[in-house]
C-alpha cells in the first residue's frame, strides 16, 4: 500500500530522529549520567512518594546538621528551606 503524503509537506521531507536530551550521541557525559551518579531516578512521582522522600531527606539532613561546620546563619537558611519543603509535603498529605 502506498504511503500517504503528510498533509503539510506532501511527503517531500523525511523525518529525522533526535535524542530526548537534545544531545548528539558522543562520548560525552550528560543529564542521564548526572542523575545516575547522584542517585536521582526520573519517574512520575505521586504525592505520597513526594511526601515520604521529603520527610526522609529532611530527617537525614536535620540529624546530621549538628555535626557540620555550617554557621548559625547557614543552618537557619537550610532549616527554613526544609520547613518550606515540609509545609508543602504536609499540605499534600492532609489534602489526600
Amino acid at each position: 500500500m502506498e504511503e500517504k503524503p503528510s498533509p503539510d509537506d506532501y511527503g517531500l521531507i523525511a523525518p529525522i530522529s533526535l535524542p530526548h536530551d537534545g544531545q548528539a550521541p558522543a562520548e560525552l557525559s550528560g543529564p542521564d549520567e548526572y542523575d545516575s551518579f547522584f542517585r536521582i531516578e526520573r519517574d512520575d512521582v505521586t504525592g505520597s512518594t513526594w511526601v515520604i522522600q521529603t520527610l526522609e531527606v529532611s530527617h537525614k539532613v536535620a540529624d546530621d546538621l549538628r555535626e557540620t561546620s555550617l554557621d548559625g546563619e547557614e543552618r537557619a537558611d537550610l532549616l527554613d528551606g526544609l520547613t518550606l519543603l515540609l509545609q508543602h509535603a504536609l499540605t499534600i498529605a492532609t489534602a489526600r
Partner: protein
Amino acid sequence: MEISHDRAVAIRRWKLGHHVFHLHLAMMNTHLIALRAALDSENWPECLGQLELLARLYRGATASMRYASDFPPAAYGQLLRPAMEPPWVSPGFSGKFNADHERMLDLLKSVRGPLKQAVRNGRASDDVGEAARQLWREQSRNRAQHKLICEKFVPGGKSLLQEYFADANN
C-alpha cells in the same frame, strides 16, 4: 568493603546535599511557573507572595549546597572527583547536566524582563520590585557560594567539563 568515617561523611553529604538541593529546585520551578501566571494576569499580591517564597527557597538551596560540600577537600580530590571521571562516567561530567537547575535558570530568566517592566512603568508596586530585587540578590549569593565551593575543592582549577574541552581542543 570497609570505608573510613571521613569518606562515608563525604559521600553522604555530597549526594544527600544534592538531593535536598534538587527538592528545592523542584519547588522553585513550581513556584516560578505560578509567578509567571500571576505576572501574566497582573495579580500583584500573588506575585509578591511567590517572590518572597522563591527568595527563601533560593536561600535554602544555597545552604543545601553548603551542606553538600561540608567535608575536607582531600575526600573530594581522592574519592568524589575520581568517581565523576572515566571509566566510572563518560568524559565531561558536570553540574551543567543538572536538568532541574537549568530549568530553574530558564524560568527565572523568563520572569525577569516582565517583572522589571511592570515595576518600571508603575503597574507593579514598590514592594513587588523590592521582592524581585531580593530574589536576584539570592541568585548572586548562590553564584558566589558556588564559586567558593569550586575554589575549595579545586583551587584555581578547571571543572571536569572544562578539562574535557581543553583536552579535546589540543
